[in-house]
């Protein structure tokens, strides 16, 4: 075993024993790159030095968590997904008097606001509650503020139109110099709070769960357990939306989901179509 791999193991142990954060079931290659990035960000020189600070330096763990969750997203990412939600999922949700949506791993919140706009335009937002969770407090704070760089807004505007948006994306934000601030009315039915998919439990009965490009950081066992958590959180017939390149074929828990649009990774709980398990 090479020295760096030993240092990573010690890092994971320190996070677990000293701070109660469990990264043991993260996919190793991504985790290693993020830890190496932390070494550069904090000019630590080595992972061992990072570990020393993690053990002894008050508050350092918060900055490490920020580095390990690196939230990269955009509004209306993968526009066809939003079209499919509008056409295939929202008409079903419309039959419920109250709608609960869980945005799991909301990072900087771009997807939360995208979802709020989608629901607003479908006339469903008044009776919807969105639970937006992440295990990174700093990201949750950014998400709640809804302030983003202006340079991203043009791409997002194109995504919004491709995703079937009915107005102009600029109707939803005010621009100030280099920043846009999203209309704070969009978050009137959003609750942001800290929830860790690795260690925390079911907290609501959801009609739709969105969790895009989060499970890709988990190994098969943790992916399976998290899909089990989603299954237990969803009402019968509730929907699950994952990232467009995610693969749930190795997960036994995925057997309880049927396909709504397999290509776009939109599934329905208890839809009666047992998914075959790969290998």
């Amino acid at each position, binding site marked *: 075993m090479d020295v760096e791999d030993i240092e990573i193991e010690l890092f994971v142990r320190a996070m677990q024993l000293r701070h109660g954060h469990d990264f043991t079931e993260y996919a190793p290659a991504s985790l290693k*790159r993020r830890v190496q990035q932390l070494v550069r960000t904090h000019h630590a020189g080595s992972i061992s030095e990072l570990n020393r600070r993690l053990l002894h330096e008050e508050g350092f763990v918060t900055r490490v968590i920020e580095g390990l969750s690196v939230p990269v997203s955009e509004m209306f990412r993968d526009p066809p997904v939003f079209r499919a939600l509008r056409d295939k999922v929202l008409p079903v949700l419309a039959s419920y008097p109250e709608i609960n949506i869980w945005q799991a791993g909301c990072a900087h919140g771009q997807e939360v606001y995208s979802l709020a706009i989608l629901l607003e335009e479908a006339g469903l937002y008044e009776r919807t509650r969105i639970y937006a969770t992440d295990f990174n407090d700093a990201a949750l704070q950014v998400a709640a503020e809804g302030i983003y760089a202006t340079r991203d807004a043009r791409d997002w505007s194109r995504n919004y139109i491709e995703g079937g948006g009915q107005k102009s994306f600029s109707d939803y934000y005010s621009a100030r110099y280099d920043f846009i601030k999203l209309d704070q009315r969009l978050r009137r039915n959003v609750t942001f709070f800290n929830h860790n998919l690795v260690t925390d439990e079911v907290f609501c009965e959801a009609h739709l769960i969105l969790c895009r*490009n989060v499970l890709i950081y988990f190994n098969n066992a943790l992916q399976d357990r998290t899909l089990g958590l989603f299954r237990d959180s969803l009402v019968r017939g509730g929907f699950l939306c994952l990232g467009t390149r995610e693969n749930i074929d190795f997960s036994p828990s995925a057997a309880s989901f049927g396909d709504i649009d397999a290509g776009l990774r939109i599934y329905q709980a208890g839809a009666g179509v047992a998914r075959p398990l790969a290998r």
Partner: protein
Amino acid sequence: MTARAAIAMGCSAGGLAALQRVLPALDRRLAVPVVVCAHTGSADVSLLVELLGRVSALPVVEAAEREPADPGVVHVAPSGYHLLVEPNAHFSLNVDARVTYARPSIDVLFETAAGAWKDGLVAVLMTGANSDGAQGLRAVRQAGGYALVQDPASAESDVMPRAGLDIAGADACLPLDQIAARLNQLCLP
């Protein structure tokens, strides 16, 4: 020495034409996984997969999350994600920040492939207009892998192979039309 266990290839500007020259000349008996990271700039890699599939000696597929790197198959990194090779030689994807302005990044593929295959890896860096892949190539050599760089004089865009040679050096620097033959020689038992 024993045959190498896997091939990772990276290219950018001019990469499609380069791959269309190399992949047809691979030996059909090659029983190692071939993993390709090409910057295409398009939102969907399926067109690249189709174009390469038409001419390649080996089947070409989009690399899929959690699937094993199958031998005798060319796996192409999907657009918009970094493609990583896990220690068990299965693929994973992530959406971390761009590396040298690119996602997928050749550095990310090469570094993680070096971690998985160590001295069994052959990494090929070809034509391209930026320096992605050079750091990765260095990691490959540090792990005992074989670094093959396209001769910059034969590259449509020479920035990428030059950066590779500057930063990592190479075990071989060959014109485009000799790359496949060297890969066959290194990877056939």
